[in-house]
Every structure is written in C-alpha cells, then in structure tokens.
C-alpha cells in the first residue's frame, strides 16, 4: 500500500518519454547449443564479472530469434545474474541489437563522409525505390530491411553496404536493382566483400 496522499497527476504537464518498451514476445530460453556457447564465453571473464558477457549473450538471443524481446532480455538477465533493467539499458544503447523483427537480409548502407562522397545517398535512394521501403523499414515479404548506418571502417571501398555480417563493397547506385535481385536468387554468394574473395578459406 502507498502512504502517498492521492495526487492529481496531470499527464499534459509532465514530459513523458516517448520511449516504448520492447515487446514481451514468446517465452524464451537458449537452445542447448547456445547455452553451451554462453557458458563457454562467460569463462573469458573473472568469475565475479559475468556481466562482461552481456553483449555476447544478447547476440545469441538475436541469432536465435532474429531480434531481442522482453522475454529474451529477461533470460539474459537470469543468465548473467543482473536485473532486466540492466539488460535493457545495454540493448537500448547499442545499434546492432534489434528490438523489432527484421528481414532475412538487413541492408546497412554506410552514409558517412567517404561513402557519401562516392554516392552513398544515391545508393540508399535506389535501394529504397527498388524495395519500396524507406530506411528503417522491412519489406512485407520479410526478406529485406533497409538501414542507414555510420562508417563501417571500409571507406576505401566506398560505398559499402553491410548485409547481416558480410560486407558488399563498391556498390554503385546503378547496380542496386540487380544487387537486390541477385540476393533473392543467390543469397550470400553475391557479396563482394574482400574477406570473401581474398582467398578461398
């Protein structure tokens, strides 16, 4: 029970944060493989510093269900031994964690200076037109999400697009339509990232 006298809270007079909590989602636990990966990873840090493993733990959630839900965060909190608010604090800070479903291919177009000098803005426009979505949106068939991101650290190969964990380099605006079609048919084989081509691993 509360000892506060009843008060008139006037919603209009308070500035309310526009922040929305992540959706709760389905009940979540790691698959046995992911549980094993987490248990391995947490050993990298001193025993009383389990929280250091939080980013890795969140990546595992994201791999497992595509994005991070409230239930996912609660599971991570349980694994780490911290509060769910601590986990949300971290999730909301880093740009690589998604709290909404994303497409099978997330096209992250770099928009920072070196890429912009070589036409990154046009690349975004073309991709946007080809896919019929704006940056930040996902196509209705769940295949593509378009995002604008800041410098990816590959400025010599501008304009760069990071697709999930791969890079595609030197994507000219004219190639965008074909690029999207190619991903639909050939998937990851399309990407020109030099890490995929320097030598066959």
């Amino acid at each position, binding site marked *: 029970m509360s000892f506060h006298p009843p008060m008139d809270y006037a919603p209009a007079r308070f500035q309310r944060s526009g922040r929305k909590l992540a959706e709760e989602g389905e009940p979540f636990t790691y698959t046995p493989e992911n549980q094993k990966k987490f248990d391995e990873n947490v050993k990298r840090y001193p025993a009383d510093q389990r929280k250091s493993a939080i980013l890795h733990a969140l990546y595992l959630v994201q791999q497992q269900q595509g994005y991070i839900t409230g239930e996912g965060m609660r599971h991570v909190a349980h694994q780490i031994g911290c509060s769910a608010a601590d986990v949300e604090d971290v999730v909301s800070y880093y740009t690589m964690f998604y709290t909404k479903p994303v497409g099978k291919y997330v096209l992250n177009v770099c928009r*920072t200076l070196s890429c912009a000098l070589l036409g990154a803005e046009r690349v975004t426009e073309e991709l946007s037109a080809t896919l019929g979505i704006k940056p930040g949106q996902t196509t209705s068939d769940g295949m593509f999400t378009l995002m604008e991101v800041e410098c990816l650290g590959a400025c010599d190969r501008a304009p760069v697009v990071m697709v999930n964990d791969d890079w595609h380099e030197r994507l000219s605006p004219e190639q965008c339509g074909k690029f999207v079609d190619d991903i639909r048919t050939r998937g990851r084989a399309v990407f020109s990232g030099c890490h995929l081509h320097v030598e066959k691993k």
Partner: protein
Amino acid sequence: MAFQPVLTNHVREPQAYTLDFYLKSARGYEGLRKALTLEPNDIIEQVKASGLRGRGGAGFPTGLKWQFVLKDTPRPKYIACNADESEPGTFKDHVLMERNPHLLIEGCAISCFAIGAKVAYIYIRGEFYHVQEVLERAIDEAYEAGHLGKNIYGSGFDCDVYVHRGAGAYEAGEETALIESLEGKRAQPRIKPPFPAVAGLYQCPTAVNNVETLCNVPLIVLNGPEWFAGLGPEKNGGPKLYCISGHVKRPGVYEASMHTTLRELIYGDQFAQGMAGDKKFKAIIPGGSSVPLLLEQHLDTPASFDHIQKAGSLLGSAGLIVLDETVCMVWLAMNLLHFYRHESCGKCTPCREGGDWLYKLLQRVEAGEGRMKDIDLLYGVANNIIGKTLCAFGDAAATPVLTTLNLFRHEFEAHVREGRCTLPAAWRSQHTVMAH
C-alpha cells in the same frame, strides 16, 4: 634506402593469416621468445627508447603509458586492445587483424609481459564479424602451438588473449568507454582521473592500446629501438599505416614512413595515384573526421604527428579523406555532424544537445533556408562544446564545423545569400538527394 613495409609486407600473399606462414615468413613469435628472456622493465625501456607513439588517435608515447601502469598492487592487470576502429576515414586495423592476426597476438602477449598482466582483451567492433572469425581462429592456433596459455616456452609466464565483440558504438573507442563496454555496460566514458593505468577494467590497472600500436611491439623487441626510431623523423619513428579514401584514383591502406608528405601519399605512384577523374584538389582531412582540414599549401608537410600538428591539424588515426573541388563544405559539415549527433553517448549536455543543434543549423543552411546569424550561431554553439565536455568526442564533434567555417566561410555565406547550395550543377544532378 627506400622504406620497406614491415607490418603489411605479406598481407596480399595467400595464407598470410596462418600460423605456419607467420612462423616461416615473418620470424613469427621470435619477438615473444626474446621478450621472455628479458626483464619486463627492459621491454618498457626499449619501447620508450623507440619513441613508439599510440596509433589510435592521441599519439601518446606507449612506453610512458605502460610505465604509468600501477606496479605495486595485489590486483590483476590488463591489456585492452582497442580494435573498435570507428573513426570515419579509418580502416587500417582490420587489415592487420584479418591478414596478419598473429602479429597482434604476439604484440598482446609481449605487452602483457611488460606490464605484468596475464590477460589481454581485444575489443573489436561488432561490424567486424568476419575479422573476428579470423582472429579467433588465429588465437586457437596460437594456444595449440603453445604461444599462448600457461607457462609459455617454459618461462613460467601465463597469458590469455580473448576477443570481445562490441555492438555498434563509435564512442566505445574512447578508452574509458571501451572499459565500460568490456564490463558489460553502456559505452559511456568515465570521469578521469583515475586513469585506466591506475583503475581501469574491473578497477584494476589497465593499458588501453590501439591494434597498430601493439603490432609494432614485436618488431621493436626483435629489431631494437634504434632501428624503429630510425625509420621516421625524430619522435615519429616506425612504420605508419595511412588510410586514404575519398576522391583519389586508388584508395586503400598504405604503409610508409612518417617522412612521406601528404602530396606523395595522394599523388605518389605507389600510393593513391592522384585525384580521381583528374578533378582539382580542394582540401584534405588528414587524421579521421575529427581533425581540422588542410589545404593545397599544406601538401608538402610530412605526414607525421608533429609536422601535421605544426600545420594546424592532427594526424589522429591517419585516416586521410581527400576532397575534390566539387565538395560543398556546408554539406560536408552536415554529413559529419549527422555522424556525431548519432554517436554521442549522451552523458554530457554540451555534446548531446550541441551536436543536435549544430546538425539542425547546418541542415537549414545547406537547404538554403539559413540566415546570416545562423553562421554566428554555429560558431557560438561549437565554441560552447569544444573543451567543455567529459571526453574528447566533444572537440571532435565541434571541429568539422569550426574548420569549415574558418576556411570556407564564404561558402556558408553564399548558401544564405543565394538560398541554395552552390555546388556545380553537374555534380548536384548526380546526387539527387542533395537537391532536397
């Protein structure tokens, strides 16, 4: 004698990232073997004598940094390798990690030995997933062959190297923010002092060093400090990686001595080979997006920490962004402020609010809706960020605005006067989004 690359000499060869290759072709792990026969303090002295300066941005002498690491403490010590590489225009560290990962691992192990640490964490940015895979495979190889782990080469020295993947935050490159992120928190800087050398990771003494910095350490141990110092101008010794991007014919990562001038780097045959499309040179950002612009008259400056500073800018992370005559400086400042506004960690007000304000003002001027007093306001806001923030990010965010205003004020005024961007029409038509 012409300069011979020593960090990147093998990066184009097949299998360069494997342990076998490293042992056979690059005198792999000989530096570590030699280091373990020395006293830790001797290694610090050697690094000091070599004049090695941090390659992450600040150019701080590495030996000195290690010397400051608290000695008499019962707590463990740590090396945190800064592989966050997010400064726009910088892309050197991933080449080293992807193609020469064992050099970094060896550097981490020697540095641990020198400061008395047993664990090194390599904090790699989340976007470098493919680099992380290479690095982790290399670490596994090193453990298997006994270059890492317990009692290395029977010397009694234990060393573990782990990779820690970030998740997309430029600010995680700042050393105390990196430590916070390693501890599993938001990447927001701490108030200094205490410096990481006294209370860093888990409140233990920590040295934070850039990838390229640590890669130089095995070479210094192996070849001696005099060799290293002799490679460059005074106090700017050693090999340096330059990242050249923007309007040049052949952008890329080039290794050179710090005697090399900016002009050679842009026009030299073995470097970027000149301006793309034979357009005219307008300006260069010599050290990543956070440093002031240099102009044509500065091109004969050697690209060393001290010379670039004397010319009025900073070598920073050696990310050279070359701009040709078609670049609108208002647009450039706007593009960069979009970056800084997005990446501000939000911990202190001048940076969090000021960055956003600057961006909005620049948007207005670029769209041709600005007023003359907006130009003064830009100065005012930027000057109220610079030097008034918790970390150097604030200065970095204000710099693109101040440097473009100082050197190209007439472009800002022209935007206001004519009510539109004054870029050559041909270029604008290629960049339709800029027509607003």
